[in-house]
């Protein structure tokens, strides 16, 4: 099993979610995060105080999937989150050791 973590632009969330649903990914966890890579931040001005803000708002999506689905999932995310501009984000893939469904106690692939 794999844990796929994607950092994407916030307005792309709905598109990515739909793309994942379409290929059978049934559950995701979404977190609002801040971050930066090569995309520049912005400057805020409050009377005399000028602040350069490097951190940009992003959304992190995490999905636990069967290893066989990895290529499909990565392709789905890449296509739906892409704008072609700097700051589109990254996808990280982690090896997922175990999964448990809390309600039933199922483990492994049955719990995904």
């Amino acid at each position: 099993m794999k844990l796929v973590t994607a950092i994407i632009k916030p307005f792309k969330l709905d598109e990515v979610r739909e793309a994942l649903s379409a290929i059978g990914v049934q559950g995701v966890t979404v977190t609002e995060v801040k971050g930066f890579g090569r995309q520049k931040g912005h400057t805020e001005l409050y009377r005399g105080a000028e602040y350069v803000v490097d951190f940009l708002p992003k959304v992190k999506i995490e999905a636990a999937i069967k290893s066989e689905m990895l290529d499909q999932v990565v392709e789905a995310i890449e296509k739906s989150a892409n704008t072609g501009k700097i700051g589109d984000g990254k996808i990280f893939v982690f090896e997922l050791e175990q999964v448990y469904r809390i309600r039933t106690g199922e483990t492994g692939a049955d719990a995904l």
Partner: protein
Amino acid sequence: MAQDKAAEAPAATAAAAATAAAAPAATATATPAPTPNKGDTAWMLTSTALVLLMSVPALALFYGGLVRSKNMLSVLMQVFVTFSLITVLWCIYGYSLAFTEGNSIIGGLDRLFLKGTFDAAKGEFSMAATFSKGTPMYEMVFVAFQATFAAITCCLILGSVVERMKFSAVLIFMVIWFTFSYLPLAHMVWFWMGPDAYTDPKLVDELNAKAGMLWQWGALDFAGGTVVHINAGVAGLVGAFVVGKRVGYGKEAMSPHSLTMTMVGAAMLWFGWFGFNAGSALEANGAASLAFMNTFLATACAVLTWIFGEWIFKGKPSMLGAASGAVAGLVAITPAAGNVGIPGAFVIGSLAGLVCLWGVNGLKKMLGADDALDVFGVHALGGILGALLTGIFNNQDLGGPGLVTDWVTVKVGSNPIMDQVLIQAKAVGVTVIWTAVVAYIAFKIADVIVGLRVAEEAEREGLDLNEHGEAAYHM
């Protein structure tokens, strides 16, 4: 503004005394003592409530939105409690020391605990003077109205010392500064014997000598450019120096957590300020109408010039700029409100937006203090600008209403502009020095008793949790 001599003269008003002196034989057509006009009373009660609104919640929200969320409640608390504290002190001794006869610096104790304002045995209210002969107002209304001024002046100072000053130190400071700076300045600028005392030219010198020192000099301050704004603004700057900079100032971001709240606060300040300025006419009359219109227009001008200034010099017009511009205009028109005409309002408002924009940028950098919410740059600078320009635009040649040159005949004229500007400058100078000295001492005393600042970890974690055991937001 004045009130009649203490309760020695039972059931007598100054107006009644004047009519009694003029008509020694009571006739069937003798005029009864005038009672307060209902329209005037309604307006003054409303104005008082409007000025209360300016403190709570307007100023509280304006300031609160500008600080970080971990300190929001501490700001609301400092304003709310300072307001209440000063109101109580006002009713115990403040009103008496400010607005009864004493010497040219401070009044007396005739109205301690407001005694004499209401005779319970007879069900009679004492009268205070307005600016018109034979037009008394309920003294109690005047007490209430002025209480809101004293309270908001003290609350203004908080803006300089937020986010690091101890709550106990705030309260101690306020008691001392209110007593030794606000009260004398209110007395010096605003206390006089009232128009009804001026019955005879022979009495004029003697009556003038009983008024406050700056009133005697002829300083014009309609609603408190000196007494409120310069007074508080300078005290704030002193506080910023004495209390010191916030931890991380200059390195860490300290952006406003809710400019939405700040805008709401600024808008309510504008609304309430109509009570502050137009209510200072003490009647629902032409002077109040002029003050109202000037307050409206000058503020709008200042909003525009501030944001256009920002647009040009900083690149973008901002909501904080618009809100700050409004406050700057309101401050500058405060001494001028009933003392200048429409041309004056245009000029004073427009200049205030630009001058105070500089005040919170260039001047602030020059001064080097962490005046957190720019109390000096807006209130002191705006107040000084307004006070000086009042000296210019009061002149009838520039559309101003002029001033009363003879209270016996109520003759209106104009001082030569440079003469009046010089008088204004002297009053400004006295105010600046007086409040700076008192503020310094008051901060130092609070420091000795409880210490001025919270501990560094408490400051990092936030005053809401550490001083008040509360969090404003649970996210």
